[in-house]
C-alpha cells in the first residue's frame, strides 16, 4: 500500500520554474553565437587574432557572462529535478544536490575569471 504523504504545499517551485524558463530564453538567444564563431574559425573566415579581438570586446564579455550564468542556472535546475525524481532518500538527495551546486558554482567562477582575465 502506497503511503499517503500530506504535508501540504511548501510554497516553492515557482521561482525554479521561472528561472528555468528565463534561462532557456537567454540560452536560445545567446547559445548560437559561440557556434557561429566556431563555424567561422573552422571555415577559415576568422583567424586567431580576429577571434581574440571579438572575445576581448566588452560587449562580448558581457554576453559571454550572461551566457555562462544562464547555462549554469539552467543546468542546475534541470539536474536538480532529475536528482529529485530518481534519488528518493533525503540522506543522498540533499548532499548530492549540494555537491552539484558547489561544483557548478566553482565552474562558473572559474569561467568568469577566464572571461574577465582574472586568472
Amino acid at each position, binding site marked *: 500500500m502506497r503511503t499517503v504523504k500530506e504535508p501540504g504545499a511548501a510554497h516553492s*517551485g515557482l521561482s525554479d520554474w521561472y528561472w528555468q524558463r528565463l534561462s532557456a530564453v537567454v540560452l536560445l538567444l545567446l547559445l548560437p553565437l559561440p557556434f557561429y564563431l566556431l563555424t567561422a574559425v573552422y571555415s577559415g573566415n576568422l583567424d586567431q587574432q580576429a577571434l581574440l579581438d571579438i572575445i576581448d570586446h566588452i560587449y562580448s564579455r558581457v554576453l559571454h557572462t550572461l551566457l555562462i550564468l544562464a547555462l549554469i542556472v539552467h543546468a542546475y535546475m534541470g539536474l536538480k529535478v532529475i536528482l529529485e525524481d530518481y534519488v528518493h532518500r533525503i540522506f543522498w538527495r540533499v548532499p548530492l544536490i549540494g555537491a552539484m551546486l558547489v561544483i557548478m558554482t566553482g565552474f562558473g567562477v572559474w569561467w568568469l575569471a577566464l572571461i574577465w582575465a582574472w586568472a
Partner: protein
Amino acid sequence: MAEMIRLSVFRYDPEKGGEPHMQSFEVPLLNAGMKLLDALNYIKWELDGTLTYRRSCGEGICGSDGLNINGVNGLACITPIEGLKQPIHVRPLPSMHVIRDLVVDMDHFFDQYRQIQPWLQTITPVPEHERLQSPEDRARLDGSYECILCACCTTSCPSWWWNGDRFLGPAALLHANRWIIDSRDEATGDRLDQVEDAFRLYRCHQIMNCMEACPKELNPTAAIDHIKRKLLARKS
C-alpha cells in the same frame, strides 16, 4: 466459423499465491463494432469465471474499466477490437497496486483527488435562487468537467510513477484547475496555495502522456500549465 481474437491477459490472485502471469485466451469476433470489454465479458461469462475486472456503464462514462491495452492506457468499453495488434495485451493500470487480476487499488488516486477539495467554495452569502454564471464563463469549464476520473492519465504519467506519493498527478490537477477557473468559486487563492509546491504541481515535466492516454480527449497538461501561469501572475 467466426474469426477468433487472441488476447493475453494479466492474471494475479494474491489469495492463491504464486507469481503474476499472462494468460492467453481466444474469443470469437462477435460483431463488427466489438469492444475490448465485450471480449473480457466473453472470457468471464464463457471461458473463465475467475477473471476479475471492473466495469459498470459500458459507455465510457463511469471510468471503471481503465486498463493498459497493448501498452497504452484506455477504457476497455470504448476501445474497438478492430485495429488492436494481436495478441491484445491487457494489463492493469501501471504503477498501481493490484488487488486481483485487472483490479487495482484506487484509494491513493481518490485521496489525491480529495486533496484539491473538488467542490464549490464561497464566502459570499448564498443567493436567493442560484449562483449565476454567464455562458462565456460556463464555456471556460469545457475540457475540464468532462473528466470521469478513470485514472488513465495519472497512471500513464512517469512523474507520478516516480513521485506519486507527493505529485498530485494530471487528473487531480485538471480538477484543481476546473475549480480555479470557475467564475463562481471564491477560494482561488486558497486553491493556488494548496498546489504551489515543487512536487505537488511543478513535478509535471510536460511529458504529455496524460493527454495521449485520456479517453475523453482532455488535456491535463494544458490545465497544469494554466495553474502555473496563474501562480506566476499572482506573484508578478
